[in-house]
């Protein structure tokens, strides 16, 4: 384990755009099934049964994108990074971690998602941080994910924090 | 591979809760004893075990490969005899029992890695590229 994860390669990566994913068109069935799962065992609100719009937490990339491209010259895009970023292609040292967990999310919502919408997700590197934990030095990786719809309207902007130790 | 007594290409899969949960997802079949070791143990089984419907699906996968893209699975019946518990390597197998005018009858079954039959039955298919033996 290094003394610090805040090495020049890590700091230089902040702000770099890593990937662009395009979803399949959202279907009414996608919306309905998502709502059924997150409200189970209760019946979801009728608006979701009718698929008037999608729950804010709905993810149209859940079962894979229609199109995926890496925006990093060092990455051929053959591996799809759904939640994270290709740290190797960013030149981040390949530290060996025992565990990776979801540390939290911070999300600002724009327009709602509806059936028929095609969502584009551009992921970039957010701020990094480190903290001493019970099992040693932990690395906090923040990935910024900006979703827009087919009209270019912003659907949401999320910062996801991954914790590795 | 179209003579009586021939074995057809098996379909092999190591089965865990991951397979079963994915199947539950598409079939809305979230049964405690297929998801949770504790639930299955309380029912007298050694671990969580898979749904019969997914063995049924694996047998179809095997027959579909045998019959070819334009082939037809005409009939299938099986009986479930033993539970498909967590971590078993399940093999779907078939042996030809009759060949009549392009229609092939088979003895079909699934078994674990120790050769114990889990499900047994029969099927009738019409392969797309049947050539008389």
């Amino acid at each position: 384990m290094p003394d610090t994860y805040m090495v020049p390669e890590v700091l230089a990566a902040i702000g770099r755009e890593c990937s662009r994913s395009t979803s399949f068109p959202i279907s009414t069935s996608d919306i309905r099934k998502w709502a059924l799962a997150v409200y189970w065992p209760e019946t979801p609100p009728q608006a979701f049964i009718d698929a008037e719009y999608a729950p804010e937490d709905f993810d149209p990339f859940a079962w894979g994108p229609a199109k995926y491209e890496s925006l990093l010259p060092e990455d051929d895009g053959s591996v799809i990074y759904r939640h994270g970023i290709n740290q190797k292609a960013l030149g981040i040292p390949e530290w060996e971690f025992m565990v990776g967990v979801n540390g939290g999310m911070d999300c600002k919502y724009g327009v709602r998602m509806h059936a028929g919408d095609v969502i584009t997700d551009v992921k970039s590197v957010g701020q990094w941080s480190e903290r001493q934990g019970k099992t040693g030095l932990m690395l906090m990786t923040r990935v910024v994910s900006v979703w827009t719809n087919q009209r270019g309207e912003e659907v949401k902007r999320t910062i996801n924090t991954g914790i590795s130790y | 591979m179209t003579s009586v007594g021939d074995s057809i290409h098996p379909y092999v899969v190591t089965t865990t809760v991951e397979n079963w949960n994915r199947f539950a997802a598409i079939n809305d079949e979230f049964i405690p004893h297929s998801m949770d070791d504790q639930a299955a143990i309380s029912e007298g089984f050694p671990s969580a075990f898979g749904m019969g419907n997914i063995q049924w699906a694996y047998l179809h996968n095997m027959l579909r490969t045998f019959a070819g893209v334009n082939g037809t699975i005409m009939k299938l019946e099986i009986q479930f005899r033993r539970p498909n518990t967590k971590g078993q390597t399940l093999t779907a197998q078939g042996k030809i029992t009759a060949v009549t005018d392009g229609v092939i009858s088979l003895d079909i079954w699934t078994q674990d890695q120790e050769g114990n039959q889990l499900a047994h039955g029969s099927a009738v298919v019409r392969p797309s590229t049947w050539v008389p033996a």
Partner: protein
Amino acid sequence: MTVNVGDVIPTFVRETGFANWNRYAAVNDEFVPIHMDDAAGEAAGNGGAFGMGNLQWAYLHNMLRAFVGENGEILGMEVQFRSPNVKGQTLTAHGVVTGIEGDVISLEIWTDTQDGLKLAPGSATVRMGK
């Protein structure tokens, strides 16, 4: 409906276990061993399988959505996942109004267990439906 700072909003409550988690894995393609298998969760040091942070995130949305009403909006939300949501816990999503600016309401939000253990604290901003 009049909303005041300090108001406690209606909670969203679920007893959590494989039935919830596997349904969520089904829609989110999140079939991760630590969320499906006690043996895998135990090997990861959590005493058994535990639920996805994303599902707590969804439950907090469900609570806020019921609060803002049909035409309301969830404008933003942030949470930190501090403790695992293990099998059999009764998880409650809570919210308390902390600020009102025009038609935008800020809330402190969190999930906790039946023993009051806070799992995921955070905050949210919403706009009430007309």
